[in-house]
């Protein structure tokens, strides 16, 4: 049984052989990360620390699922970039909508007496 993942190859789709222990390890890590993000809420961590921890655990979990479970770590770079680069556009949408949400909030607060 080898622990380090094998190097990428052109014939990846003909069947990847990774030891089952790799999946069990990732499974355990995902459990641990979920438990830790649950603890963030349970311990009533608030403010910037809470958000940082939540986002860190979230990104770690997403990375593990994507790279190991979905085998992206062993895909060709063309496929990886085709999948991972387009979602970066969403950051623009998030930025635009943040501005829009601020505008809507202050419109409601100032002109609708806090209602609406």
């Amino acid at each position, binding site marked *: 049984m080898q622990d380090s993942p094998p190097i990428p190859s052109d014939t990846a*789709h003909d069947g990847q052989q990774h030891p089952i222990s790799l999946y069990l390890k990732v499974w355990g890590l995902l459990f641990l990360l979920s438990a830790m993000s649950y603890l963030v*809420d349970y311990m009533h961590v608030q403010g910037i620390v809470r958000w940082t921890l939540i986002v860190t655990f979230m990104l770690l979990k997403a990375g593990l*699922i994507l790279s190991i*479970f979905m085998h992206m770590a062993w895909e060709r770079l063309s*496929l990886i970039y085709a999948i991972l680069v387009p*979602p970066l556009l969403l950051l623009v949408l998030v930025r635009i909508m943040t501005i829009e949400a601020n505008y809507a909030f202050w419109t409601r607060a100032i002109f609708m007496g806090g209602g609406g």
Partner: protein
Amino acid sequence: MAREITNREVIGPTLREISADWSADQEVFRHTHWGKAMMWIFLLSDTFIFSCFLTGYMTMRASAVLPWPNTAEVFALNIGGQDIPLVLIAIMTFALISSSGTMAMAVNFGYRRDRRKTATLMLLTALFGLTFLSMQAFEWSKLIFEEGVRPWYNPMGAPQFGASFFMITGFHGLHVTCGVILLLIIASKVARGHYDRTGDYSAVEIAGLYWHFVDLVWVFIFAFFYLW
């Protein structure tokens, strides 16, 4: 020139590999099983759908003037006379992660041509999925019948909470349901030896990609909707 050569070495074979793949105009993904490439592209489009929901949720929550309900209390369960915050969602998360684990192993055994183990693990995955769905049904009925939350109304504060909750978790639940059906179909084909005859177990991996994506989306929903 010496400098040029170094640059080329720095760029390395990977970038050259990309340019070679994309310059062969019609067959960028020729090294990948066509079904797998198509599934990835579908998942990319699905990423945009869920991102739009989550961005919409962000916009509504940031612009809500009424207080946002505390999800830790809303989704608490009374176990042994004590309210444990968010425990139902935590169990749902663990069920979905476990289903991802069994699915990953099913894909592995599929490529080892182990028919029995692949089918069993896929059935186990579907079972975890059904567990998740039944807990979600419980969560929904609790919120609808006991708390009186509606997509347009929420007695605990901002009505936008109801809208985003039903939309986001409902759409995710729909994905889980489709995933369970897909898993059951592929698992029965595995059990009947269909992929032994064709000699190609890629269908298991493709179904696995979809299932892991459903888990992946839940990671973001868990973080942004339930924990934020």
